[in-house]
């Protein structure tokens, strides 16, 4: 190990790590927003409401993220309509493509988590809310979603860690996040093993901090207290 080399490049690595965190944070938050309607529709009792989210989730969970990224970044340019549209400045930039793809990808997974959580709510609680005269919408907002959020939180934190690692794929579309930055540095100094190990250590630290953060959040939301009955 050559510590001086790692120390010398540490600011650059940190710069990459910042972009990694940015990509992860934006995509898991945006993914959650997309996933809420998807998850609710997915757990519907009506087949025609259920089938479209099901197809979406099936596609995004059944294909590699790398392919999805290439479909958005390289694939969309095949269509003239896209290139002439007002969105082209965004769809041309690797940053936005990575954000869009990761959001759509993680939304599929979060929607499944949400469905599992919604179906795990004891039916008695929903019946109780309805018996108290709450409308269906009120029941959804005040009973179903807060309950589902607590049931699904541990799985959601797993998904965030997975996305932190998946963000490394953004390096394949020329983004200089932690992995991309590491490869660029290696092309300069040829310290392959040292630099990759340093990047790995930074990923480990980031996921450790995130896990601890979610533990605090679970305590704050009193997830344990809601599980045991």
């Amino acid at each position, binding site marked *: 190990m050559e510590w001086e080399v790692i120390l010398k490049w540490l600011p650059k690595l940190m710069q990459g790590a910042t972009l990694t965190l940015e990509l992860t944070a934006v995509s898991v938050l945006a993914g959650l927003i997309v996933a809420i309607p998807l998850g609710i529709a997915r757990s519907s009792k009506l087949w025609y409401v259920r089938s479209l989210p099901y197809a979406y989730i099936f596609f995004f969970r059944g294909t590699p993220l790398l392919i999805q990224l*290439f479909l958005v970044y*390289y694939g969309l340019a095949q269509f003239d309509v896209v290139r002439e549209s007002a969105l082209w400045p965004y769809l041309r930039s690797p940053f936005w493509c990575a954000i869009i793809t990761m959001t759509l990808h993680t939304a599929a997974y979060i929607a499944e988590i949400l469905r599992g959580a919604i179906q795990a709510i004891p039916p008695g609680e929903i019946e109780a809310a309805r018996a108290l005269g709450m409308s269906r919408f009120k029941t959804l907002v005040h009973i179903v979603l807060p309950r589902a959020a607590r049931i699904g939180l541990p799985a959601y934190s797993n998904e965030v860690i997975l996305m932190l690692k998946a963000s*490394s794929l953004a390096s394949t579309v020329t983004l200089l996040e932690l992995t991309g930055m590491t490869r660029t540095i290696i092309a300069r100094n040829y310290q392959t093993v040292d630099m990759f190990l340093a990047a790995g250590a930074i990923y*480990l630290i980031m996921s450790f901090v995130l896990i601890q953060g979610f533990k605090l959040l679970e305590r704050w939301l009193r997830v344990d207290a809601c599980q045991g009955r």
Partner: protein
Amino acid sequence: MTIDLYGFGPALAAGALMTVKLALTALCLGLVLGLLGALAKTSPFKPLRWLGGAYSTLVRGVPELLWVLLIYFGSVNLVRAIGEYIGMPDLTLSAFAAGVLALGLCFGAYATEVFRGAILAIPKGHREAGMALGLSKPRIFTKLVLPQMWRIALPGLGNLFMILMKDTALVSVIGLEEIMRQAQNAVTFAKHPFTFYMVAAVMYLGLTVLAMGTMHVLEKRAARGFVRRT
């Protein structure tokens, strides 16, 4: 509607074959590593437990892509040293071997947790019964614990295999000619990126569906004697 593949159909099919080969080879390595990891994590010796824990924590905390790159580009010097030692100076790690090592390593780390859960789920009484019958420790493991473990571990392993199958796309980054790489090659020659990547995506979907079907059959088989037939 037919899709014009500009003569790249056979290449994509060959890529699919390579993907399957890679996934199955990595699966074999990963199962062995996972089983060893779980044994280490449940062993009564503290250093072994520590080793198993370190393996699953460290490997799971680092992106799969980084493992692929680290093993492929980082092993050059090491492999050359080994090659010189055994008298083969131009020994190098092929992209396939590096992919199998990286994906097997990652699969093994997750499988460690699945197997550990399965081992812990087997009632203590079964092991004690084996001991009372005078079976040796390895025999208790192979004849009592292992056959029962599969049924419990199978759903978890199935999920991990789906993830593994999709992670094989990462090995295209180091140049292995699997589905993803073949699609990239086709795009370089024939343009139409959306068409080719979509075809590749559908191929992955097909493989996933195939794996899901196989898992369903295996799980049904493993559940014989545990579910009531109607």
